């Protein structure tokens, strides 16, 4: 017959101090693990939602990022007339030749300078990114030294408010608007007129990339292959979604370091949990002997103590997850190895992460609980009663 769980719960309550301290130790480990997982999830979310499945990004063959060399602007009219491209209200194809350059801006909180992507685009570039919505001010006027800044740039850098001027390349740029693209990578960019940007960075006569908006996902796929297969163009088409998917690898370092830290902390916490459980067994050796006399079998005693350890770690997991809640949604930046600049993303706690955290804590509880429970079940009844 199994020993009721209420027995374990009462025992945990009885030695409150010990229970709380051990659970808190497990909680800290869980918090660290959850924090790192939420960082990665946030990063993934920022990149996964960035691309639009109907947008095709065209770059020079061999280029891995929009920063690279670029191709001659004379190819742009050819690209524009390819079949399958959506048209705007005036019947013009939705195609935008663009440049991405990197500038250095000082952080608002004074923690140093950061690389920021500046994108030069054509007016069509705004139409083919319907997710980017203006929050304040207006869009830039072509031919003017005006920029609009992404939501994250607005929050993180000084001089990125409406009416401010940003100083980069060959002079000053007026901030005329702030846009929000819903937490995607675009929120970490500054947008301006492509010709102005190209002139400032001596890149006239070429584009680093051309964005084409297809009528539907099937047409997008066809468009992508059409561009890549044309030997004369020497260009390569990628779905925008594919392009951003590749950039999630920026989180690689966090992932490895995070796993390492979590495992080491978990080993430490398991030893601590084992200590607590051994103490719990030692205090109750007479009680355990009594249980045996009443007729509870060795396996049920073993199970009971393992369950107690699991309850302890569950408590730790819950506390650990609660501790991280205030940080959920907090934003931070990460260097993107492909674009050489910072992408801002938010800590993103998901149900999956919470479940993984609970499982992680359970493993710690199991590692810490099995040996003491085994010890409890193996105790000799008579010696224990005399103790």
């Amino acid at each position, binding site marked *: 017959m199994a020993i009721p769980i209420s027995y374990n719960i009462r025992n945990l309550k009885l030695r409150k101090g010990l229970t709380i301290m051990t659970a808190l*130790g497990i909680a800290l480990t869980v918090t660290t693990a959850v924090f790192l997982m939420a960082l990665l999830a946030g990063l993934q979310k920022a990149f996964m939602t960035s691309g639009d499945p109907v947008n095709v990004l065209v770059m020079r063959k*061999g280029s891995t990022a929009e920063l690279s*060399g670029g191709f001659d602007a004379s190819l742009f009219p050819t690209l524009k007339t390819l079949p399958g491209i959506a048209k705007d209200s005036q019947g013009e194809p939705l195609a935008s030749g663009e440049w991405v350059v990197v500038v250095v801006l000082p952080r608002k909180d004074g923690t140093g300078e950061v690389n920021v992507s500046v994108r030069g685009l054509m007016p069509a570039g705004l139409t083919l990114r319907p997710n980017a919505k203006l929050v304040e001010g207006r869009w830039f006027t072509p031919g003017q030294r005006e920029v609009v800044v992404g939501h994250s740039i607005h929050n993180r850098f000084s001089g990125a408010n409406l009416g401010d001027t940003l100083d980069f390349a060959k002079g000053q740029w007026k901030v005329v608007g702030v846009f929000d693209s819903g937490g995607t990578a675009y929120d970490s960019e500054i947008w301006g007129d492509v010709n102005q940007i190209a002139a400032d960075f001596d890149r006239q006569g070429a584009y680093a990339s051309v964005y084409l908006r297809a009528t539907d996902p099937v047409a997008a796929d066809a468009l992508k292959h059409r561009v890549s297969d044309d030997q004369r163009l020497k260009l390569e088409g990628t779905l925008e979604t594919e392009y951003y998917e590749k950039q999630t690898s920026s989180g690689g370092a966090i992932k490895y370091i995070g796993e390492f830290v979590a495992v080491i902390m978990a080993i430490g916490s398991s030893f601590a949990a084992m200590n607590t459980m051994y103490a719990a067994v030692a205090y109750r050796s007479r009680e355990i002997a009594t249980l045996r006399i009443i007729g509870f079998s060795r396996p049920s005693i073993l199970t009971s103590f393992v369950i107690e350890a699991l309850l302890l770690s569950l408590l730790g997991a819950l506390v650990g997850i609660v501790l991280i809640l205030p940080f959920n949604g907090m934003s931070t930046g990460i260097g993107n190895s492909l674009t050489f600049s910072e992408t801002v993303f938010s800590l993103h706690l998901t149900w999956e992460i919470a479940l993984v955290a609970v499982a992680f804590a359970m493993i710690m509880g199991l590692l810490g609980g099995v040996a003491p429970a085994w010890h409890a079940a193996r105790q000799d009844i008579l010696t224990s009663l005399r103790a």
Partner: protein
Amino acid sequence: MTLSRFVTKSAFRNKRRSLLTVLSITFSLLLLTLMMTIWHTFYIDKGSAESAQRLITRHRVSLTESMPSYYREKIRATPGVVAVAPTNWFGGIYKDAKPENFFAQFGTDPEEILKVYTDFKIPADQLLAWQRDRAGVIVDNDLAQKFGWKLGDRIVLQGTIYPVDLELTIRGIYTASVPTQSVYFNQTYVEEAVSFAKGKAGTFDILTDSPQSVSTVASAVDNMFRNSPEPTKTESEKAFQLTFINSIGNVKAFILSICFAVVFATLLVSATTMAMSIRERTREVAVLKTLGFTRQSILQLYIGEAVLVALIGGALGCLLALGLVSALRQAPGMVLFLSGLKVTVSTLLFAIVVAGMVGLLSAILPAYHAAKLNIVEGLRYIG
């Protein structure tokens, strides 16, 4: 029995518990030492003596913009400059785009680059062979071992920034004081193949005559180009590397928060153990008091016990960290910015002191309760 022997005896009266506590502290302190080592390498370590004499000049706007090549001769004319060589990030793909096949590739001037990087050691005949072969390349020793490269091997770097695939022959293998994970080839190769690469340089690497002239040379160079169309930013090699670390994200806050969590967890573990162990001995404390031990000496006994256990855990953690870091340094395919990791004596000392403090703090409350104990009540205590 002396006091210290008494402390040692009672610290290990329950062997299993003490062992588990020591192990738990060991793993926490291992993590703490590693994190502090990373911190030290990034933010405190000044780098080698050679590194302290070097400067890197880049385009003021950002690293992705290039400067005209003629800047080099102007920089050379600056007082205090011993040697200056251009370096250009090639960013090509070796074999495939997998991260483990990634390494730094620089186009440079073979005649002068090793006069700037005086700490790179290469046999004279290999250097000469590289200077004579326009399609030659010299590679870092660690990298050569990782990929199994030998002199005379051919490697192909597929261009991503530049539309050209470089077919290079390994002419030399150099060793540096800190692994560089880099290869250097003649930039002329790229310039001949790609028109837009002509006459441009990504960075200028400068060797100055002494660590003292570093700051004057830096400001002299930047002042010289202040009003030109391509202004520059010149900083020490260490500062230049720090910008890369900063670009990964808020590394400082990351390390600090992990350290904080680890120390707090250790404190909890140690405090739990001490609370358990002192509670068990309530009757013993009463006996000690009856024998004439003062409150103060009882306080000392228990605090000493906790500090001893924590110190052992700390020392073991430090040893493990030492082993792990040296294993990491030898691991192939090490992330570039971690290859310079070195555990310093001060880091170890700091870790041990932290361990001792944790032991001390964890014991104060339970030991104070024990010291305050009423003898009669203590003797009646049945646990």
